[in-house]
């Protein structure tokens, strides 16, 4: 049934659980940790125990077995209550845990996945460098073979979970001359490997409870068996991880949009009670209606894309052949929903702020926080300009 977008009973039950759990166990802490700009260790422990850190991974490796759709449901609900929490779990799951499952050999999967799924070990993704943001292929960090080990040198920046992660998926140049096509390799780096250091923590306008750090490799020695995928295959690992990351991140931003719409409704109803019928005003109706239209459109495309990613990942994990056309379709759609959903959220939250006016602009109230938290969706995992570049390039080549 290609046009049936409904969720299964199991997925609905899972969403209900996630919602209730977050409402009781996470929401009460959100404001506090944002204000303190501290990692919410209390809630992270609870979330780990309840199984939030291994949602998409098959049970065989200690995951919950919910696939990308279930994971997206979780991220949607999580980002609805706090984008910092969603970033912590998203960086861990979407772009570290999942690629280890996708590209890892059995030993790597068995070594890393179970403890990461339990949240005993937290993951991070290290691609960005001072000279390699949007231009990710321009990686300067090097990895030189030395006996049975690789020696990494360089600095990564803006790494989510940097200071709390135990396992890093790191991309380094094994052959600079080859660049992205064969010159970059993915490594699984543990925080205790000699020569690994966590650097400064960034101060940020939003998602303040989610730590973002520099990480430094100073002759960091990584055993050869920690190469993820093949040597020289790292850029494909990164792009595949980001395909999934972008699609599922979009489910997160969908949660942000829903929150904003709910807040607008709440405000209109409250004013109704106070006999200030602002819900009758055309401009206010436009705010709500437009966000609702954009939300529904985004929701359908996000979950359609996530379902596609789920199929795609299933094939990769089983080492099945994937056609180039399918791979590029997944990349294009992931890029589309990343841009669409994050901008929908930003717009909805901006409208909410405008509607709440002074109460929206007041620090310490939820709308102001949501506004600061929402913008990151347009930046990380590839800026929305880069998403458009991917989309246009693909469409010009192959049509819609």
């Amino acid at each position: 049934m290609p046009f049936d977008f409904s969720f299964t009973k199991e997925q609905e039950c899972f969403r209900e659980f996630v919602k209730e759990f977050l409402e009781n166990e996470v929401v009460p802490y959100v404001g506090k940790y944002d204000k303190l700009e501290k990692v919410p260790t209390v809630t992270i422990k609870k979330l780990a125990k309840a199984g939030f850190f291994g949602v998409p991974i098959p049970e065989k490796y200690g995951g919950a077995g919910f696939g990308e759709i279930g994971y997206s449901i979780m991220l949607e609900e999580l980002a609805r209550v706090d984008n910092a929490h969603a970033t912590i779990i998203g960086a861990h799951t979407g772009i570290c845990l999942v690629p280890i499952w996708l590209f890892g050999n059995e030993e790597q999967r068995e070594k890393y996945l179970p403890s990461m799924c339990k949240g005993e070990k937290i993951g991070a993704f290290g691609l960005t460098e001072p000279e390699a943001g949007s231009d990710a292929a321009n990686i300067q960090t090097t990895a030189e073979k030395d006996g049975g080990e690789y020696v990494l040198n360089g600095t990564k920046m803006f790494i989510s979970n940097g200071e709390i992660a135990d396992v890093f998926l790191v991309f380094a140049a094994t052959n600079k001359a080859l660049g992205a096509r064969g010159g970059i390799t993915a490594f699984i780096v543990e925080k205790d490997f000699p020569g690994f250091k966590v650097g400064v923590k960034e101060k940020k306008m939003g998602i303040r409870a989610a730590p973002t750090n520099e990480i430094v490799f100073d002759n960091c020695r990584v055993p050869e068996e920690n190469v993820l995928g093949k040597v020289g295959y790292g850029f494909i690992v990164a792009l595949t991880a980001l395909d999934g990351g972008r699609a599922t991140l979009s489910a997160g931003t969908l949660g942000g949009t829903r929150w904003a719409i709910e807040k607008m409704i709440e405000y209109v109803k409250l004013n109704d009670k106070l006999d200030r019928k602002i819900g009758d005003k055309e401009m206010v109706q436009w705010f709500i209606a437009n966000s609702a239209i954009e939300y529904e459109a985004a929701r359908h495309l996000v979950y359609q894309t996530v379902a596609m990613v789920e199929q795609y990942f299933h094939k990769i994990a089983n080492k099945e052949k994937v056609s180039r056309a399918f791979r590029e379709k997944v990349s294009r759609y992931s890029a589309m929903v990343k841009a669409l959903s994050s901008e929908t959220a930003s717009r909805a939250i901006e409208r909410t702020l405008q509607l709440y006016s002074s109460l929206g602009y007041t620090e310490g109230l939820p709308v102001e926080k949501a506004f600061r938290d929402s913008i990151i969706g347009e930046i990380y995992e590839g800026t929305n300009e880069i998403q458009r570049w991917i989309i246009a390039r693909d469409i010009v080549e192959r049509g819609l």
Partner: protein
Amino acid sequence: MREVSEKMKVVACIKPIYNPEKVKVHKRTETLLLDDVPLTINPYDKFVIDAALYLQKEINAHVIALCLGNPEAENVLRKALSFGINEGVMVNAPSLGELNSLSQSYLLSEAMKKIGFDLILCGKTSQDYRSGLTGPQMAELLNIPFIPNVKEIRIEKRELTVKAKFQDQIIQVSTHLPALLTIQENSFPKRYQTSWEIHKAYKKEIKVLTVKDLNIKEEALREAVTKVKKKFLPSETKKRPQILEGKPKQLAHYLLKQLEKY
């Protein structure tokens, strides 16, 4: 590890009810609009799940959730399983219409005989009809001791000692197994599901019993005799919030006056 058969068998009765949060009332006719309203676990039975899982942990009991309802109620049973219950049994009675509560208890008690039990746990009542009859009726039909409003459970060998709420007091009662208890709200540690358990619950095989599988005299089953004459909501209070203006001192004085009225 002991064999399943050696473990204490605790059966938790789970009633599916229309999710009260999703039920809407027709504005004019004041009838309940139940189309598309999903079934959910009777909130009082959530405390039963907590109690059953407490016994699973404390005495390594094998916990079975038992649910009577139409096939749609299977989802409710699965949700119950997702809290960590070992096994699920569904008694399907789709063709029988709305049974009266004694007939429901009769069906459930026959199902109990079929699956076997050491201890049966029921909710105090259900949030839809609030009759609170199922537990005591079942105990009577099975001819086993019944203790309501239980807050604490201790089991040693076949001896059962419980603390239960009795009017304003807590009483201690001892009896022997098998027995049937209803569970007082918020008495046992609240259990959450986990993502792992939810996924497992939806893969578990559920045992389905129909009337044919049970030793039931169909002529003994009766339709509900209660006839609903009128359904209505408590009238909404039309109070509006007031916005007070004035000097803080005057306002405080005014508020104090208002409070004194209560």
